[in-house]
């Protein structure tokens, strides 16, 4: 279980996160919602280790993550699908997937079949350069690359952004499949409300660097959440 407790985070003197607490359970999709600029990505950066927090703690299965480098967190099972995908455009699909080998012991350095079962298109394009894929295919590749690391905490930052509807549906199916396996906690940052509502087991809403609302699947009041997302 991921436990983020009362964290603050600053960029220089500018405060991006204030007193943020959040939990994400294994076998569940935890959604983090909010308009742009409210701190969602900053929170993910602190979880995956790209930015230190200035206060509070981030624990993954009782291991304190704060202070660990991103590669150390990756060895503990933390994998990230960054916003904008950030695949390597000049590497082939195969090579992009192999980037995920880095935290693995030698014996586990192969691409699990599951990646191609979830995203068959990747199998057909193994020799193609990442940069030549469509946006939706690149998003699938970024998720595939994260799955190669055998994550137990999968963090996705706006996986539907700029993606065509048919692929959004495939990505949704993949995320619920991964959830149902019950082996990983999934933390999903979204601005596409319907997508998050259909997938999420619990919901946290951010505004101005703080969590302003949290609810479970059953007690989530759509109108209350939407109020924080629209202007």
């Amino acid at each position, binding site marked *: 279980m991921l436990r983020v407790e009362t964290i603050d985070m600053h960029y220089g003197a500018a405060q*991006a996160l204030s007193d943020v607490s959040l939990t994400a359970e294994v076998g569940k999709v935890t959604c983090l919602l909010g308009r742009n*600029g409210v701190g969602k990505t900053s929170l993910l950066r602190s979880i995956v280790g790209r930015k230190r927090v200035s206060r509070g703690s981030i624990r993954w299965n009782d291991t304190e993550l704060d202070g660990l480098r991103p590669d150390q967190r990756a060895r503990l099972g933390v994998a990230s699908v960054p916003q904008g995908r950030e695949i390597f455009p000049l590497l082939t699909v195969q090579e992009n997937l192999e980037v995920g080998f880095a935290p693995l012991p030698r014996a586990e350095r192969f691409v699990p079949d599951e990646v191609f079962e979830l995203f068959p298109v990747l199998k057909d394009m193994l020799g193609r350069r990442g940069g030549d894929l469509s946006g939706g295919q690149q998003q699938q590749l970024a998720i595939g690359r994260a799955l190669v690391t055998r994550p137990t905490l999968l963090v996705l930052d706006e996986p539907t*952004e700029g993606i065509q509807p048919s692929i959004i549906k495939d990505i949704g199916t993949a995320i619920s499949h991964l959830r149902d396996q019950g082996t990983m906690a999934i933390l999903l940052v*979204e601005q596409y409300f*319907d997508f998050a509502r259909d997938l999420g087991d619990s919901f946290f809403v951010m*505004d101005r660097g703080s969590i302003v609302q949290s609810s479970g699947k059953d007690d989530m009041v759509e109108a209350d959440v939407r109020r924080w997302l629209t*202007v």
Partner: protein
Amino acid sequence: MKESNALLYLDNVNVAFDGFKAINNLSLYIEPGELRAVIGPNGAGKTTMMDIITGKTRPDSGDVLWKGEHDLTKLDEADSARLGIGRKFQKPTVFETHTVYDNLRLALKADRGVWPTLFARQSAAERARIDEYLTLIRLTDRAEDLAANLSHGQKQWLEIGMLLAQEPELLLVDEPAAGMTDDETMETATLLRDIAGERSVIVVEHDMAFVRALDVKVSVLHEGSLLAEGTLQHVSDDPRVIEVYLGR
């Protein structure tokens, strides 16, 4: 030409990057002395719009006119600054090792040739102007402190003051409230309302509490076009605006 009384006039502007239409038939008019808020989801074209106004990006088509006479599409960033367009980027960029006062002094509009600079003496008029800016940006008490010792919000105010010192007629301000405390955010809204009137201000912001406090006309951009315009209440009731914010 229509709308020739507008300070800034964008009409049917288009920009594509590698086939991606970042700005799509965008039209926008800013009156002299007006304070305007611009909002929109990620990738709406807010930054590209400011790049076009300041000559950093050239549009593929469309008119961008300053006071109805200068064609901004033909000018570069330095030209637009000389015309009176000041731009503040999101991150504060002040000279941290100088005092607040000296930061403003460095920014004053003046002849910056070698000899005038070398033999510059501060006039009483300049001192009075700096005092006026210090009052506006709420930093009179901090004039002799190093900029490095200001809070994040105060640094943003100082940079706004440095822009004012260049005597612009239009200020473009990008997400000033990001990272500010609640009090600083509200004070910044008042500050921008104070400085508008004598010049025009376009402020891009995501912070809705801030936009509400500005209480001015809001332009909503989406996919490079103007989606809606009016009071915050008006645009927030617009079903198309609701839809784009919910990501549909």
